[in-house]
């Protein structure tokens, strides 16, 4: 390229770049990506694939989908999940049947690898959206995921 076409291209490309950033500058009000976190705590929504903690959803009858198969406990690489289970009598068939007593989840041990959620055959556990996990007392990180008095939803095992 010649000397003068060099200068021409230099000026043209520099102006192109400046127009791009100039547009960003003018649109900075609308397009701001900064989250002003403690102020927008009420409206802040985490994205779908966010891994905050493992939760066990319960429906309105206080029923969950955990059959106590312990696949998640086996899949967990560092012993985050402990299932304390019991044998109960099935009302319909009268047979002895495994049911969970406590689904213990140690958040302090969890690496958020997600293997327990992948392996769960009944989708009883899933990712929660809570991200404010810091507490003043370490024992609060040990959680029982099934709510007291909850039981297995009918038809999950079929």
């Amino acid at each position, binding site marked *: 390229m010649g000397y003068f076409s060099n200068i021409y291209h230099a000026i043209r490309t520099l102006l192109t770049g*400046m127009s791009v*950033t100039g547009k*960003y*500058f003018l649109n*900075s009000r609308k397009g701001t990506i*900064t989250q002003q976190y403690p102020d927008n705590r009420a409206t802040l929504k985490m994205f779908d694939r966010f891994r905050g903690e493992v939760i066990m959803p319960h429906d309105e009858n206080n029923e969950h989908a955990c059959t106590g198969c312990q696949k998640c406990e086996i899949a967990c690489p560092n012993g985050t999940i402990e299932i304390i289970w019991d044998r109960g009598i099935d009302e319909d068939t009268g047979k002895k049947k495994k049911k969970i007593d406590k689904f213990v989840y140690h958040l302090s041990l969890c690496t958020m690898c997600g293997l327990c959620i992948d392996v769960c055959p009944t989708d009883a556990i899933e990712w929660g959206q809570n991200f404010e996990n810091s507490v003043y007392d370490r024992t609060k990180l040990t959680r029982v995921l099934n709510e007291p008095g909850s039981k297995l939803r009918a038809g999950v095992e079929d």
Partner: protein
Amino acid sequence: MNIALSITKNIHDWLFSIMPETTASIVEMILTALVYLTVFAVAGLFLVLMERRVAAWFQLRIGPNRVGFQGLLQTMADALKLVSKELTGTVKADKFLYNLAPYFVIISALMALGVIPFTKDFQAFDINIGIFFLIAVSSIGVIGILLGGWASNNKFALIGAMRSGVQTISYELSIGLSLLTMILLAGSLQLSEIVEVQKEGWLIVQGHIPAIIAFMIYMIAGTAETNRAPFDMPEAESELGAGFHTEYSGMKFAYFFLAEFINMFLIAAIATTVFFGAWLSPFGITESIPWLGLFWFLAKTFVLVFLMMWFRWTFPRLRVDQLLTLEWKYLLPINLVNIVVMALLVWQNLTIQI
């Protein structure tokens, strides 16, 4: 009535009435220096804030907005923090030069401010070689950078300082020559005279094409002179840590930092004076209210400062060889031709007079 001028006149009369003439003028000089020092230290802090907010807007962020209204006190708080910090140093550093370097940088930046005409008769030091003085004083700053880099006993600092030396020596030429082009048109080195000439149209309008070319060259060289991106090789973060001020901490670091922003203001102020009519209002709309000159001066200066910030957040950093190619192969020859064109223009009376 010129408010600023009447205040200074009252103080002047009062000082001369209570003490002998020599003492009074010395006290007056010290007072002026103190006022300039305070005002521009604070102005420098606000420039830092402006830079951070503008940078944030360019990157679709918000920027500091917590300390004070819209973050106005953020840089004040930062400066207070820096004052309270320990002044560290390297073991085998040349202590004397190491401590001296920041003062070179900040004093040269503040000295040059003395001749800037902020509004009519509001100029600390109106000498007949104003532009020459500005060019001379503003290049003293590089000695401070070289000293700081050399005395730190740190290889990154040394490389940064040497790059700064290369850069400043090269681009000083372009600044000088582009201002010389405008001096051909204005016919004087004295800044107040240059402003007087512009009452018949700003010099960038009077000189049309060569003046615009000179302005572009001046802004490029001025950006290089202040060591700002895209010419920030002396302190290239990704290559040299922090460059020449790697080993500085606390207030000495703050001096370097402040000097960079005062220099930026200075480059913009010189451009305002020489190209955009200093404190003259556009089309003389507020000629009857002289103190509005200060507003016009600052408005024009801040537009140019914003332009430099725009450069900074748009362009990637140059390599050293690209930097020298730009100066010696492009800016310098164009500049020399430009001077000849401007001389022809002035000779043939082809300038635009309003």
